């Protein structure tokens, strides 16, 4: 039987086992929406802005490990989705974004709601397709899911003109698809893996530098086993948090611009660095020249060859899936007669403990103002460290990363690469759909939350009991901090004026609103809020305006050049 392109789209999504489609209708996708209406295989989540649709699909993907799906219309629907797509691209999140397009005959005619979606998204997708023939719809969607979820994951856009959704053809969903130009490597090169293991066993001051690749490849167990087998110190990037249990003594905290003193010092002074699913970006190693003032040998494991030798030279490059490579290394280490040099390792740990004793995350606990760090610490306690936590971008994001100790992967969800304000709440929606029973919190600032605050409406419609933790310092805090440090206290446009009464705003959407102004009220308020399992609670914490994120490596400086409290 012949089906229309629109029916085929919906059937393909069902074949892929899609549970949720986050989207917003419009002219070019009306045929598809008509088929969405007629089916019950997946649930459609109507957002209030297309950016939120993509972030929600993204949050769903990060929390579940599955491919997120968004559906948007042509023109402004498509362009609104672009920030979400770029966000997912920078963090390697598997998404399939289906966008409507004007009818094929109208393409290039400056038709109503026409944009060149394939052109606009080309630099921020893993791949994209314009489907011009209804016969190609099924195979293209199959390819989109295959590309999005394999190798280094990423967003794939499928742009479908309206007439293609009306035309008919036989529907056959391919079981498998292969592409001659796309063959991601899984296993590491055996010779390189052996060389790496040899280097690891010779290390005297080793360091494990782990990133988002550990989370993406579900390699937490392997990483934990690997680190414990060797007794090596471990740090994680912002994207990798939760990949290694943060409460484990081998964990030295996050590294980088706002990383811990011990993690950054150990990075700088180690003699063998094992980079695992991380990419040495500018927020992590600071100035590469400074980084190389201290010699060290580097082993770099990554599934994407372009990540290797991009910013730093490495001694042993291993292209492969982190999970598979670590499993292989564990086998070799267990089989080896050699063991790491225990006295050397002991001396190294003594040094690290001295750095750790610097207690770089201390802050004024006697302040009469609410300290943002205190809110996160209390929230960690109240949720027993088990919540899924999303964040927006800025100071609150760094405090969340520093003070919430993530012991499990896929629980910390933030826009690390692109740094997209407005990500937190829509991402939390996606997380809650993925885990309906779980506690999901969004840590945000008064700047970020206003970038997608309309989603409070979506949360009401779908009864999503998120806990919004707003650290409200009436400033774009990270901008203010840079202006204080580097721009002579000239706070250009970083003050947030004319803020709404957030508690009332939340109430007007049908949620619970709270305003917390005193440190002694913080814990009680959190307990009360997290006890409300069925309701979204919007907690407006009025925090110390002058608080800064420490430690901090100024841009262009080296890892050991931190500004400390």
């Amino acid at each position, binding site marked *: 039987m012949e089906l229309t392109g629109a029916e085929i789209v919906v059937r393909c999504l069902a074949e892929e086992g899609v549970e949720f489609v986050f989207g917003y209708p419009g002219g070019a996708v009306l045929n598809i929406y008509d088929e969405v209406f007629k089916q019950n295989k997946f649930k459609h989540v109507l957002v209030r802005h297309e950016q939120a649709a993509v972030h929600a699909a993204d949050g769903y993907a990060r929390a579940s490990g599955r491919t997120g799906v968004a559906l948007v219309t042509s023109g402004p629907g498509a362009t609104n989705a672009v920030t979400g797509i770029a966000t997912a691209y920078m963090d390697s999140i598997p998404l399939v974004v289906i966008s409507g397009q004007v009818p094929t005959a109208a393409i290039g005619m400056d038709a109503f709601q026409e944009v060149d979606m394939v*052109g606009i998204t080309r630099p921020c997708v893993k791949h994209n397709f314009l489907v011009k023939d209804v016969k190609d719809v099924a195979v293209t969607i199959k390819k989109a899911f295959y590309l999005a979820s394999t190798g280094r994951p990423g967003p794939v856009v499928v742009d479908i003109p309206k007439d293609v959704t009306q035309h008919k053809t036989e529907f056959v969903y391919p079981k498998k698809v292969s*592409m*001659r*130009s796309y063959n991601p490597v899984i296993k590491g090169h055996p010779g390189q893996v052996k060389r790496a293991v040899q280097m690891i066993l010779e290390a005297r001051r080793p360091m494990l530098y782990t990133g988002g690749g550990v989370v993406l490849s579900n390699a937490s167990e392997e990483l934990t086993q690997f680190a414990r087998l060797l007794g090596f110190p471990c740090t994680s990037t912002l994207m990798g948090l939760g990949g290694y249990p943060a409460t484990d003594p081998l964990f030295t905290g996050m590294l980088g611009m706002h990383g811990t003193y011990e993690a950054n010092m150990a990075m700088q002074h180690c003699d063998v660095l094992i980079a695992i699913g991380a990419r040495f970006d500018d927020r992590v190693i600071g100035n590469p020249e400074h980084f190389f003032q201290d010699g060290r040998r580097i082993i770099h494991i990554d599934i*994407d*060859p*372009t990540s290797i030798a991009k910013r730093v030279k490495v001694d042993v490059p291993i292209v492969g899936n982190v999970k598979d490579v670590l499993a292989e290394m564990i086998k070799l280490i267990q089989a080896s007669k050699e063991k790491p040099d225990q006295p050397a390792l002991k001396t190294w740990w003594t040094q690290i403990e001295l750095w750790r004793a610097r207690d770089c995350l201390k802050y004024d606990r006697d302040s009469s103002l609410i300290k943002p760090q205190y809110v996160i610490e209390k929230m960690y306690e109240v949720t027993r460290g088990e919540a899924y936590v999303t964040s927006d971008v800025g100071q609150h994001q760094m405090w969340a990363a520093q003070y919430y100790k993530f012991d499990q992967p896929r629980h910390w969800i933030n826009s690390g690469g692109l740094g997209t304000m407005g990500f937190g709440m829509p991402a939390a929606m996606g997380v809650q759909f993925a885990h309906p029973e779980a506690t999901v919190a969004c840590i945000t600032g008064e700047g970020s939350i206003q970038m997608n605050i309309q989603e409070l409406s979506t949360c009401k419609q779908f009864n999503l009991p998120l806990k919004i933790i707003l650290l409200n310092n009436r400033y774009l805090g990270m901008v203010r901090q840079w202006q204080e440090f580097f721009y002579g206290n000239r706070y250009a446009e970083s003050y947030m004026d004319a803020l709404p009464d957030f508690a009332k705003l939340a109430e007007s959407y049908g949620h619970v609103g709270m305003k917390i102004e005193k440190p002694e009220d913080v814990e009680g308020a959190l307990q009360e809020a997290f006890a409300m399992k069925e309701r979204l609670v919007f907690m407006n914490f009025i925090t110390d305006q002058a608080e800064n994120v420490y430690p901090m490596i100024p841009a262009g400086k080296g890892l050991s050049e931190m500004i400390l409290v």
Partner: protein
Amino acid sequence: MENEAGALSRVAGLFSARGYNIESLTVAPTEDETLSRMTIVTRGSDDVIEQITKQLNKLIDVVKVVDLSEAGHIERELMLVKVRAEGEWREEMKRMSDIFRGRIVDVTDKTYTIELTGAGYKLDAFLEALDKGAILETVRTGASGIGRGDRILKL
């Protein structure tokens, strides 16, 4: 690479987005109609060339990447030059074209159009050798390249 709409823009976009320079770029379908072959001339340190190679390989439409300059190769470019051919120029231009093994493919009372094929430096040398005032117009295709001997780029 796959002979598909948009493949060229993916390559060109990669070069501009990552700040790599393109000296020339040529592309055309091959005897296998599903594939087209592109020759890119670029410059950079070994690290940059390594990144360019890897980034190109990462593009889904790119099937295979070879650095021709790693071994013996042949490079050819076609140039058409329209020159003045009046008075004393007329004999001079014919002579220069012969020296460089060019062919005059279009003639008017006042102009010759010379076709010249060779590696880029040979075409540069020809233009250098001509009196600047004689050149009316030039158009070049950019280089196409192929490996020497039995070195073959094929699927």
